[in-house]
């Protein structure tokens, strides 16, 4: 099971800034390990961020996104105390959802 995502959501002047740090190896599938064998591809392919059930960002990632992906974005709205949820799915079908409270 992957480690929980670290999500920070801050509201200032009506705009909520969200920063997410995901825990994921993000293997592109082209890297070789010490013995020369290809490390199989395992990377987050899709991400969905929602606030009060409404999608505020969708992302499609490739193996070129760095390990332990970082993502930052802003959306209008959101009030302190409300929740922002982030869900990712990887190429192996694993997924993880975490949420944070807007500060």
């Amino acid at each position, binding site marked *: 099971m992957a480690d929980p995502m670290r999500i920070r959501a801050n509201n200032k002047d009506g*705009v909520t800034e969200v920063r997410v740090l995901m825990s994921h190896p993000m293997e*592109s599938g*082209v890297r070789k390990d010490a013995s020369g064998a290809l490390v199989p591809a395992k990377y987050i*392919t*899709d991400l*969905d961020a929602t606030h009060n059930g*409404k*999608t*505020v*960002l*969708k*992302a*499609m*990632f*490739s*193996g*070129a*996104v*760095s*390990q332990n*992906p*970082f*993502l*930052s*974005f*802003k*959306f*209008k*709205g959101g009030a302190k105390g409300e929740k922002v949820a982030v869900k990712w*799915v990887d190429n192996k079908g694993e997924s993880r959802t975490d949420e944070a409270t807007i500060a």
Partner: protein
Amino acid sequence: MNNTRRTVIKTTSALGTLVALGLVTQQQAMAAVDRAAFDVKSIADAIKAIGGTAANSDQVSVVSPDIAENGAVVPVGATSNIPNTTEIYLLVEKNPTPLAAGFIVPAGTEASVQTRLKMGQSTNVVAVVKADGKLFSATKETKVTLGGCGG
């Protein structure tokens, strides 16, 4: 106009059939670009797969370091001041598959995203945004030094 309508109906029913057959999840059907675009090997073809050709625009900016000390973790961001920006794509020209990430920006979300990308070598980083169905882009060169001191 007829052509567009036919294309829309064709695409919608094709996607709809795929969703009904369970071959494409609902989420994928709403995706910005076909996942095949991420396997394309040249940046020109990747931009074509996103939706054609992109016009250079000073309303789009790429934020990436002039010199990246660690090519495995390079902070890259893109911002678009063009109204009705609905999608943002980040491409790394010299990567084996240039399209690195795509974002769908719903109404109410700022057209500004930041993430971290892998770059194998010094390269142009290109941001392509879609606004009102048209593509616009901006480019910035990032030099990559793997290990060692910067500069």
